[in-house]
């Protein structure tokens, strides 16, 4: 049996439905109406130890619900889940001692206390041995560059700083499995980059099994080899990233706006188009050209005012799937 084994799992929520405005409210007071929302429908998947899996889909696709069932918070209506020999929702207390979960939307830090105090509390909760705690803390703080704000109260941190602290909080007890639920949401480019690098390193060095939800394709491309695409509670695709990438195309477009009128010299493997006197588009294949290097080349060579990179969005991939193109 695989490390994480999910079989035919479904979860339905009852959501209150009422028509808008005061008449709707009054009607609802006496005759409440509910409708069933199938958040997850008949999902099966298996993940091996040490794997890093990207779990993507648009908002409301059922990603978070799946993560919550896998982490023992929610109980599936049907089907079975088995992770490392545990049934998460039945053996919650023992099970969660060995996993780590990061919810991008919810912090598990103490709002009023310095970050380090939250870590100390977690050390007591998880009964982390002193040497392990110190080793992990020093290592993570260094990797995520947190030295500057570890003594600040959580409420005074920027979103990126808080997210990094939350990631460390979930990892202090050296879990074997980590679930990330949108760990880069609302974080700026540099912050995202740091987080991705950290996650990747951790997976490679410590053989931690990871499941990673996001709707940012960049997150997945830089970290995962395997992806699962989910939409409307169903798995649309489960396989290697390389495969789907080659299918949906790897073309990217970088648009640079210059500070003054200028001509741009040609670059190898890149199609350059002039949009107006100051605006140029650089179209390239991101398997051939490294975006970072291209961006540096352009920034170093020209007097650039603004740069944007366009990429196919997850919604359009799913749209393509519906149309049978993938």
């Amino acid at each position, binding site marked *: 049996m695989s490390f994480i084994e999910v079989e035919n799992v479904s979860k339905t929520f009852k959501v209150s439905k009422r028509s808008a405005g005061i008449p709707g409210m009054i009607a609802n007071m006496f005759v409440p109406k509910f409708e069933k929302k199938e958040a997850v429908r008949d999902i099966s998947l298996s993940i091996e130890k040490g794997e890093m899996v990207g779990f993507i889909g648009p908002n409301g696709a059922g990603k978070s619900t799946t993560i919550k069932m896998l982490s023992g918070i929610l109980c599936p209506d049907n089907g079975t889940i088995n992770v490392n020999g545990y049934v998460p929702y039945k053996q919650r207390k023992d099970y969660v001692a060995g996993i780590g979960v990061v*919810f991008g939307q919810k912090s598990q830090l103490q709002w009023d206390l310095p970050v380090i105090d939250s870590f100390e509390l977690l050390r007591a*909760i998880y009964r982390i041995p002193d040497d392990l705690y110190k080793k992990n803390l020093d290592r993570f703080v260094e990797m995520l560059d947190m030295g500057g704000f570890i003594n600040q109260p959580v409420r005074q941190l920027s979103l990126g700083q808080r997210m990094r602290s939350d990631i460390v909080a979930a990892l202090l007890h050296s879990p074997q499995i980590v679930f990330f639920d949108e760990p880069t949401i609302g974080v700026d480019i540099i912050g995202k980059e740091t987080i991705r690098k950290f996650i990747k390193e951790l997976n490679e060095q410590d053989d931690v099994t990871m499941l990673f939800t996001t709707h940012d394709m960049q997150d997945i491309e830089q970290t995962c080899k395997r992806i699962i695409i989910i939409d409307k509670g169903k798995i649309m695709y489960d396989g290697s990233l390389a495969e789907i990438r080659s299918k949906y195309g790897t073309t990217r477009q970088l648009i640079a706006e210059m500070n003054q009128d200028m001509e741009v010299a040609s670059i190898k493997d890149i199609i350059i188009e002039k949009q107006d006197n100051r605006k140029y588009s650089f179209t390239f294949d991101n398997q051939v050209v490294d975006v970072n290097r291209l961006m540096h080349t352009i920034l170093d060579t020209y007097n650039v005012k603004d740069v944007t990179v366009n990429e196919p969005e997850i919604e359009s991939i799913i749209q393509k799937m519906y149309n049978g193109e993938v």
Partner: protein
Amino acid sequence: MGLTPYLAFAKKSFLSKSAYRLDHWMGILNTMIRLFIFVEIYKSLYGTREAVDGITMTMVTTNFILSLCLESFFAVDDFYLSSRINNGSIATEMLLPVSFHGRMLATNLGTAVFKLIFHFIPALLLAIFFIGMEAPAGAGNFVLFILSAILGYGVLWSISFMFQMLSFWLINVWAIMTIKNVFINVLSGSMIPLWFMPKWMSGVINFTPFASIYFSPVQIYLGNIGAAEIGMCFVKQIVWILVLMIIGKLLWIKGQKKMVVQGG
């Protein structure tokens, strides 16, 4: 070793209590005002009489002082679960490898210890100084009073625990908690001493957990009841704690399956 996380929760709750100083002083004032009003009302009711149905005015005063002071440190957060369900933070709570009930109790106890030291004791001393009350009927009675008060807290906590489990279905449990608290106020003897209840009423109250909260300890303190009855009080308290906890636990198991995590 097994207690470490719970001690950490209790300590955190104890420390965070000290952050709201004004609230704390107002709490003591609140206890004193209520005490003063209740005592004055009964003073005028008693008039010049020595005793009513064998109950003296000082016994009434003692009942009020003890039950209101106990009430001041019997900290129970009625909205512990519902607030966490309401804002979705139940998700992160459930990720901690500790028992949710244990954590809830530890947090409440941390607050209770804080209130015992900084609310109960000052309020009690002020009350003894300004109003005056009877001494315990004996050293044994005093020890049993403390034991019974601890079990009284257990009963109060279990009632709240059971009702809190309804949060899984209702999410907002404010109204139910308010009704529950009215019942506790009226039927536990902290507002109307149970001696003065009509016969049929005290018969009914005997079959509820409410008298076990404040009234049983007070009776023991005053030495109003004999050894057999004291034993009965303890049995009742323990049985109520068990019954309420079992119902609460069953609701918890059922509720967990229904749980919704709000907000993404």
